[in-house]
């Protein structure tokens, strides 16, 4: 360090000093970093448990230095339910892509939300199946081209992109729902705040928190990382707007 300067930001110690396998610019990396920054800030490393999905983030346990459990494809919410019920003093989060949480695992997701299970969903919605080669997901935008919708998603046959945050916000026992992104520094700061808030609610046993991330997949979208930010701003956010959809904590304060 140069003399006369102070350190104001460095990589959190809770994020292992390993190169993540994610493609350049992928928000999976950003979200791992933010999660571990919050774990470090709240000093909860020894009592945090993450649940890994199937998808690009299947190896998330290699990077986040907290206890982690792998789940079968889509079943992270069921595994998180079991862990949180047996170890209620732990801070538990499920970390899932849209193919995982909103396709094969929709039932587990909705029922955990309906029961108001006291853990945090981190839902990485990149609108595509990244790991398997960019196939259409339930969240793929209308007319968006993917490897299985080469002419664009046809809503007449495939339906409209599923808005999971809006859906789970309708469940009475879901306490806090926010959609965030990591496409700008300001939005990334908000994403970090949302994670922190959800963990604090969880420590107060408030019920389910659901954080949807309007994420990217430069490789599956066949664009550069910088172009993926333009796609988010111009195409994704008009359909999946950012912001708090539900915050019962805030309503209590009012």
């Amino acid at each position, binding site marked *: 360090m140069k003399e*006369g*300067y102070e350190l*104001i*930001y460095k990589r959190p110690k809770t994020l292992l000093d390993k*190169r993540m396998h994610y493609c*350049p610019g992928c928000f999976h990396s950003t979200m791992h970093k933010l999660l571990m920054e919050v774990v470090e800030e709240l000093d909860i490393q020894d009592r945090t448990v993450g649940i890994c999905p199937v998808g690009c983030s299947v190896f998330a346990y290699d990077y986040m230095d907290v206890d982690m459990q792998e789940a079968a494809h889509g079943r992270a919410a069921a595994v998180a339910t079991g862990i949180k019920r047996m170890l209620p003093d732990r801070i538990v989060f499920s970390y899932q892509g849209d193919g995982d949480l909103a396709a094969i695992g929709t039932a587990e997701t909705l029922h955990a939300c309906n029961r108001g299970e006291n853990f945090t969903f981190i839902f990485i919605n990149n609108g595509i199946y990244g790991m398997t080669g960019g196939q259409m997901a339930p969240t793929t935008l209308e007319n968006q081209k993917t490897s299985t919708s080469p002419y664009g998603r046809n809503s007449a046959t495939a339906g409209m992109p599923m808005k999971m945050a809006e859906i789970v916000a309708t469940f009475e026992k879901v306490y806090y729902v926010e959609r965030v992104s990591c496409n*700008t*520094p300001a939005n*990334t700061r908000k994403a970090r705040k949302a994670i922190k808030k959800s963990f604090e609610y969880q420590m107060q046993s408030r019920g389910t928190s659901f954080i949807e991330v309007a994420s990217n997949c430069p490789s599956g979208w066949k664009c550069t*990382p910088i172009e993926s930010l333009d796609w988010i701003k111009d195409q994704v956010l008009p359909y999946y707007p950012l912001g708090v959809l539900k915050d019962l904590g805030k309503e209590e304060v009012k």
Partner: protein
Amino acid sequence: MPFKGYVEISVEGCKGCGLCVIHCPTECLALNMSDTNSYSLHYAYLKEPDKCIACQNCSIICPDAAITVYKKIA
């Protein structure tokens, strides 16, 4: 007001995505187009050190947590 801050960017940790470069408000970062790291990626570096204002925009947007930020002690 020059030398408000500076950043260190890990050459091997950087994946050359360029997100920090486009979000630096004073345009002091760049990808090094004449060199690569061991992954054959053009890495980001502090091209104009006297312009850094230690705002941390680059470090918050960097997916790979490759950036360390220092601020001048007032």
